[in-house]
């Protein structure tokens, strides 16, 4: 392999480029990214960066002086992939041909239908989004967050810290039920009420109203109207894979990959939020939208790419993510979906400090830590141990 193109210049793309060099690849390396920024860290965008505690320079993911010997094409959007000669077509008409291609185009924030064009209405995915939202939050007043997922909850927490009056609207009966299950979703989203942030569940948004081009209220399906100076839609993300449609790369809620990131096209792998890897633990393809997956899995995909699929990389660790809300550390590892029970094994829900273990037929499949960093890490290691070596409790 003499040339590799990485498409997407964020955490997964940078991690793939680093893994290529770390695994001895010394050929040509081209990194294509739509944003004009050098790779930066997204989690602080809803937390310390949004609150103003972290400066932009602290978001950079590259080390000072780091040189991967790569050609960076920033501000360049990929619009197509020709599988026959493995060429990436860019919006500006250029073409990048390579022996190997790493797809790392991540995900984009879903937008509200009908919310277009009104000032004060935001999504949060990019640094530019965060700058714009930060400026609007500085105006103070009332914030309505649509969506009680992790990003919505973090924005609510940060805005509350900044002194805004915050309401969170969630269409589902319980926020976070998908990633955490109903019982734990309810416990974790109780943090809003603890801090005087209103949480309205089981009600959808009908429309936004505005005056002079700026949002003034959020109208709910049950007829209520919530006054709003600023609105944030935290309604999920979709994988950035439209540009691959018709290329022959198999897509299915993201790029469909095997358990090491290989796509159906030889010489093409996919990593990070845009990729749905086969997960043997659940027997299905899953798109994991967490920081740690985008950081770690590229090493396995690069091993597969460089060996032409001959090497079998170590299986990835169970999915792990964290969220910081209201000064509380939430950590989760594993898969909640298949669990048939969840029990609090340490601490107490009322203290907002506990560790909960999810089990499927008595086998631990996931763990949730709320302000329990140390035991959480032990459990996380335990979940990552090969099945035969697991014991009941760490």
């Amino acid at each position: 392999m003499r040339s590799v193109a990485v498409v997407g210049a964020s955490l997964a793309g940078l991690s793939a480029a680093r893994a290529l060099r770390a695994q001895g690849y010394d050929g040509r390396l081209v990194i294509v990214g739509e944003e004009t920024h050098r790779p930066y860290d997204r989690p602080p965008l809803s937390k310390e960066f949004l609150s103003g505690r972290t400066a932009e320079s602290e978001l950079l993911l590259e080390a000072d002086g780091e040189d991967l010997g790569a050609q960076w094409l920033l501000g360049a959007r990929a619009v197509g992939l020709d599988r026959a000669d493995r060429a990436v077509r860019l919006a500006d008409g250029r073409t990048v041909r390579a022996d190997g291609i790493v797809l790392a185009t991540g995900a984009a924030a879903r937008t509200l239908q009908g919310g277009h064009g009104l000032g004060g209405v935001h999504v949060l995915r990019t640094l530019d989004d965060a700058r714009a939202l930060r400026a609007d939050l500085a105006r103070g007043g009332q914030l309505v967050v649509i969506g009680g997922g992790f990003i919505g909850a973090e924005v609510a927490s940060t805005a509350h810290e900044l002194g805004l009056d915050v309401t969170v609207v969630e269409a589902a009966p319980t926020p976070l039920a998908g990633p955490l299950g109903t019982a734990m979703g309810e416990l974790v989203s109780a943090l809003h009420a603890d801090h005087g942030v209103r949480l309205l569940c089981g009600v959808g948004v009908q429309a936004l109203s505005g005056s002079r081009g700026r949002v003034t209220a959020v109208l709910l399906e049950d007829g209520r109207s919530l006054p709003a100076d600023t609105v944030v839609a935290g309604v999920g993300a979709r994988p950035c894979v439209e540009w691959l449609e018709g290329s022959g790369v198999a897509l299915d809620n993201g790029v469909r990959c095997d358990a090491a990131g290989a796509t159906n096209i030889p010489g093409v792998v996919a990593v990070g939020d845009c990729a749905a890897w086969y997960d043997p633990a659940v027997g299905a393809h899953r798109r994991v939208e967490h920081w740690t997956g985008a950081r770690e899995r590229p090493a396995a995909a690069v091993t597969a790419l460089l060996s032409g699929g001959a090497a079998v990389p170590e299986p990835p660790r169970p999915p792990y993510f964290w969220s910081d809300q209201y000064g509380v550390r939430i950590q989760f590892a594993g898969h909640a979906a298949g669990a048939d029970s969840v029990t609090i094994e340490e601490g107490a829900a009322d203290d907002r400090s506990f560790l909960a273990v999810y089990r499927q037929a008595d086998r631990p499949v996931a763990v949730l830590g709320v302000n329990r960093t140390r035991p959480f890490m032990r459990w996380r290691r335990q979940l990552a141990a090969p099945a035969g070596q697991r014991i009941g409790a760490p």
Partner: protein
Amino acid sequence: MMIPACPLADLPRGEAFRLQTDPPVAVFHTEDGEVYAIDDTCTHQDASLADGWLEGCEVECPLHASKFDLRTGGVDAPPARLSVRTHQVLVEDGMIYVKLSDAPPNLPPSCAAARLGGIAATGGVA
């Protein structure tokens, strides 16, 4: 200054011990039998590296998974950008001693602020 940390026999391989100095120090006993000491506080945010994931000569922060080389303190994986301070270790008569470094520590911003009497560090870790 040499500080007695704990008897080697009390620190099994693969485990870590937190020395309650100011700032605290983490002492690691690797699977290979080496003993290393670094500042306990991650340089990214306020997390205890003694609670981290020890593998070989590397510790992974329990929070956002930055990795530090125990031998040099260097950052092997982001999001941390600054290396963690290392301390000299001596094992004598079955006792682990730590010689605290004179170099300035790379404490995370929230901790540094707390130390300067500013805002309290967030997130009380159990």
